[in-house]
């Protein structure tokens, strides 16, 4: 049952990801992306990571994607006239070799994975959200704080790149 669910979710994810980059209409791209986000959330649920699944839907599907749609509608982005870029043979070549590498590594027979500290059973016991919170505010406190600086810089950057009058835009070189 779980395996069947996984195959369904993973297949839809891959198909939607391909559609996201290959469809012509920007709105369709965004909708394909939305579908992909929901299915990724499903994958998280299969992995016993309910908190991540909810965050995935609220943040990605809810906030970020709606923002994309707003931008699309405000800017009235025109449809790409050419369907595929000239570089597509290179893209296929590189994608093919990366896929071959991954498949080869999987077939190799030495693909080993450690179980780690937080097994499904351990997480059931502590609780999903608590486990993340504990790790985030103890072991990973420093990276977590650095994330705040990244957000700060993104905010200031948006101002520097767009605010009127901050940089003299009218001089002609």
């Amino acid at each position, binding site marked *: 049952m779980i395996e069947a669910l996984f195959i369904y979710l993973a297949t839809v994810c891959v198909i939607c990801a391909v559609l996201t980059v290959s469809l012509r209409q920007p709105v369709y791209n965004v909708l394909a992306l939305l579908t992909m986000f929901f299915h990724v959330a499903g994958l998280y649920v299969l992995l016993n990571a309910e908190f991540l699944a909810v965050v995935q839907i609220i943040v990605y599907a809810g906030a970020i994607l709606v923002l994309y749609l707003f931008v699309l509608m405000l800017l009235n982005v025109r449809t790409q006239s050419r369907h595929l870029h000239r570089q597509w043979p290179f893209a296929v070549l590189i994608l093919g070799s990366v896929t071959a590498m991954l498949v080869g590594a*999987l077939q190799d027979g030495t693909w080993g994975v450690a*179980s780690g500290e937080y097994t499904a059973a351990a997480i059931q016991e502590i609780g999903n959200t608590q486990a993340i919170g504990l790790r985030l505010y103890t072991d990973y406190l420093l990276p977590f704080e650095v994330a705040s600086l990244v957000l700060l*810089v993104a905010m200031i950057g948006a101002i520097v790149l767009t605010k009127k009058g901050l940089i003299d835009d009218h001089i002609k070189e």
Partner: protein
Amino acid sequence: MNMTIPMDNVIALLPEMIIAAFACLVLMFDLMLPQGRKNPLAWFSLAGVALAAFATFRLTHQHISAFADTFQVDPFSNFFKLLFYLIVALVILMSRAYLQQDRIHIGEYYHFILLVLTGMMIMVSATDLMTVYMGLELVSVTLYIMAAMKRYESRSTEAGLKYFVLGSFSSAVLLYGMSLIYGVTGTTNLAAIGAFLGDGVPNSAATVGLIMMVVGLAFKVAAAPFHMWAPDVYEGSPTPITAFMSVAPKAAAFAVILRVMLEAFGGMKSDWEAIFTVIAVLTMAVGAVLALVQTSLKRMLAYSSIGHAGYALIGVVVGDALGTFSVMYYLVIYAVMNLGAFAIIIMLRNQGLMGEELDDLKGLSRTHPWAALFMLVFMFSLAGIPPTAGFIAKFYIFMAAINAGYILLAIAGALLAAVSAYYYIRVIVVMYMQEPETDHVLTAPAGLRLALVFSLLFVIGLGVFPDPLADFAQQAILSF
């Protein structure tokens, strides 16, 4: 479980906290200054850098592991931090005139440069994949914005966008590799990963993760075949920012490469050694050959910077104590001589003169003999001609390679260095053998002069007496 932060952690993180605090204070201070009068911010930022340098200096020979082993102060990280302070100070000194000329002298510039500094300091001290990634991302995101700061010019916005798209892509590849490594080992701590992978049992998932991490990091140092973004980004960005990003983030990424490869993947050296050998040779070749055909000075220096990453990669391939030492030494020398060369380009930027083309240097020795002489020394040093420091740096790299038995790699490096000497010398020919076409009068403000004189003394001084820096670097080698 209580969340307590022991004093030890605060002391270890003090330099980073000082710089981050100054970055935020700059923003507030900025509000008090009228537009067009932002000079005090430069001095204020320099004061912050000096304060942090003092804090780092106090920690020079200490080993402190902080924040649940995600962050470590050791001589290795302090060596790089002191290098970053030097780079940031030089860049701040030399950038003011250019920024004013191009009307982008805003307080946020200093905010950004201090935050990049914070990110780089976190990168070199990181002993956990999470910390490495967050530091890297702080540096990258800030640099994307800085590249596009001249937003009225399409070249600059193009540089920012290109950097952003390719940088995000490389971050994603790096993250994918990290996630595989986490899956294999169940930990993100570098030492724990090293202990897990050290037993030499082949694991294909770990190999794939390693390859992806190498690719991601190679993107960050602009090593071939992942260098495509560098020339466009370096050419389009405002020159002081180009100068900055061609040296500082590259040095930080090299520190990460050294630490991650030696500490976490020490047991898989035969794997990454092969990859880095190919990358190093390709990078040196691309840097040497493609720079020959450039007419833009900035583009030429971009390819030269790619080539220099290749030489430093030889030291990474060697990977022993001497190899690590040679990389560290090379990065310091490269940083100062490259900044010197860019300072001359900044000087050429003048009313009505972009100063970014090779032709703009025509007859510089007639019109401005001093500037030409400085450029001559920096070009000699970049080419690796004695008695400049560039020669000593290359010498250590090749010596490390030969000592460890990588004779072919050393020969390839020496041959490509000879090829690349051609285009450095071409710059000198243009300056000294050709007639001047314009009669622009160049002006160098005090800060720029100071940076130039310092770089010159550094390059010549270390070329003649290489020992002080060598001793300092020797003490800071990573030891496992």
